[in-house]
């Protein structure tokens, strides 16, 4: 019987060989469909369908191939998401030393061709924009701005929100009341309007953007930290620590914070994705980092001028797809992290 086949791979009834064969067949079919779709031989409407079907097949096929190779199921999607984020972060970090085209100085690109389509020229892999600036370089420098701002904002939120939340949750009573009112007040202000007001008052610099966006994350973090602190401070280990002479500060720092941080970190990953979107929205409204310094938001804004979007869809699609993939990856990562470190799962 198949069930008792010792060669079967964990998680399936198939043997390794059968699994690998199916995977290879699916991946191959996927590649063929993808090639057909991209070559543009057929009717225009069919092409996107072919591309999507090809991608799905390629994904399913590689999933099975890896499954067979490692003898156990791997979360391929999570791997791809993490891989994308690592790649993006590495590119953003190394941007100044990478052999990229010009991303900002319009004067130096006067002789460069404008609106080059992507994937056709080696020196401009993702094409150029209306000023002849290199799209790849702009996307990577945009990632620098977007990621720095979001990470700074979320870190401020974690530290400030976490500290305030733990204090509120541990002291309760009046402290909690005051902090609760402040948090609710902050949550009651429509975030976009708050950001617009702040952006008009503050200089649009990376640091100021991070501070403005952190105001969005602080109330969430306060609530999360407070709720977890209340739950954990009922546990006997807090009483046990007090019964051994621990001060309030010590109880908070050494007994409560280590328990409160894991769920906050997984929340932070999800929050990052919404911050990236918020930052892009601000830039799109022209309130964020000012061009020519690129961010994903102001790159998308470029596509809005005249009929650029219809004439040169790549101006919109390049930053759009990168933004989409990044937000998707952060969300996926955060969701998996929450599954793992959900406070409800932490019974002990």
């Amino acid at each position, binding site marked *: 019987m198949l069930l008792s086949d010792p060669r079967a791979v964990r998680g399936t009834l198939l043997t390794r060989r059968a699994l690998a064969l199916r995977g290879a067949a699916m991946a191959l079919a996927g590649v063929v469909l993808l090639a057909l779709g991209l070559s543009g031989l057929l009717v225009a409407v069919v092409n996107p369908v072919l591309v999507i079907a090809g991608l799905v097949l390629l994904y399913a096929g590689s999933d099975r191939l890896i499954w067979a190779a490692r003898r156990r199921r791997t979360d391929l999607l999570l791997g791809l998401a993490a891989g994308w984020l690592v790649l993006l972060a590495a590119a953003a970090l190394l941007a100044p030393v990478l052999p990229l085209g010009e991303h900002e100085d319009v004067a130096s690109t006067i002789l460069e061709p404008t609106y080059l389509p992507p994937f056709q020229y080696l020196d401009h892999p993702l094409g150029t924009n209306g000023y002849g600036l290199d799209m790849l370089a702009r996307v990577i420098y945009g990632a620098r701005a977007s990621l720095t701002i979001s990470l700074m904002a979320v870190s401020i939120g974690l530290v400030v929100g976490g500290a305030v939340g733990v204090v509120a949750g541990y002291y309760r009573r009046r402290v909690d009341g005051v902090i609760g009112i402040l948090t609710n007040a902050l949550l009651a202000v429509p975030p976009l309007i708050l950001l617009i007001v702040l952006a008009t008052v503050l200089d649009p610099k990376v640091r100021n953007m991070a501070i403005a966006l952190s105001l969005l994350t602080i109330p969430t973090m306060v609530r999360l930290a407070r709720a977890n602190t209340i739950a954990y401070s009922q*546990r006997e*280990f807090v009483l*046990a620590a*007090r*019964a*051994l*002479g621990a001060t309030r500060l010590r109880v908070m720092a050494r*007994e409560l914070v*280590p328990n409160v941080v894991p769920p906050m970190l997984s929340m932070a990953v999800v929050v990052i994705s919404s911050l990236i979107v918020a930052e892009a929205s601000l830039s799109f409204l022209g309130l964020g980092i000012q061009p020519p310094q690129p961010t994903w938001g102001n790159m998308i804004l470029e596509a809005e001028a005249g009929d650029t979007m219809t004439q040169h869809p790549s101006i919109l699609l390049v930053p759009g797809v990168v933004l989409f993939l990044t937000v998707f990856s952060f969300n996926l990562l955060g969701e998996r992290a929450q599954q793992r470190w959900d406070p409800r799962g932490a019974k*002990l």
Partner: protein
Amino acid sequence: MTTARDRFDGDGAPVLEVEDLHTRFTTPRGVVRAVDGVSLSLAPGETLGLVGESGSGKSVLGRTLMGLIAGGPTTEVTGTVRIGGQAVHELTAKQRRRLWGPEIAMVFQDPMTSLNPVRRIGVHLTDPLRLHLGLGRREARERAAELLDRVGIPEPRRRLDQYPHELSGGMRQRVMIAVALSCDPSVLVADEPTTALDVTVQKQILDLLAGIAAERRMATILISHDLGAVEGRTDRVAVMYAGRIVEKAPTKDLFAAPHHPYAEALIGSVPALSAAPHTVLRAIDGTPPDMANPPDGCRFAPRCGRAEDRCRTEPPVLAETAIDRTVACHFPVDGPAAVPVQEAAR
């Protein structure tokens, strides 16, 4: 009103003295008198069993006498508690913290929740050592390993780096005992230390506690609703009912001849192994009183078979019936007529 008789004979000054202690909580239902006029004293090396059913105020008493429950917006504590001569409830929070660990320590009910899940076993032990005894990192680790060894944990050095979830319930309770012992307290309050454990492990833990207490001449309060746990491991027993001590006696005497009807009923309700199968258990009728609204007179009267009119109107006072035995009852079981404590002391 601590009398000379209250003291464990011949062991010098008491390490713990509780006089007329009251703990009241203000709740939406009214003022709950969880501890209502408790006096007791404990000599060095003495073990006192504190028994009573759930809700009788045992744990609140334990926490109040440690000072863990102190006066606050919704809590009122009156009376005095002296640990090593210091009145706990008159100390500042800072002074009180210095007491916890070196003077008095507590073992909690549930070892599953009394260890921090994200901190290693070693840290639980080294924290108080470094805080109170000022030991260095390495010395504290050394002491921690010795403590684990003393409470019977094999491979103590390896355990230091493990997390609580890697240990069984019995092991964790041993760790909690080691934590409580870390600063060598003169009084240990064990608040139902075996309730959450298997029966076989219960005996081991109780024997361990008794052994350590004897070896260090540490005074122990063993809070329990399990009479079996108290019998044979304590010098004296105080029976609590509805926030008050109703009978206090040397353990042997109490189990041989309880004077208070509640103590008698409590002992009578323990099933005997020698009883024939299907023997009906002797439960105590009724439920403990609502402590926000306790009955006038004797609080046990509504459930007591011996209650008469006097019991329902006039609360009985703890009175001495024999040497080192006190009981709060108008009509004690086979006891001589009660003499109020105050008069006996004179």
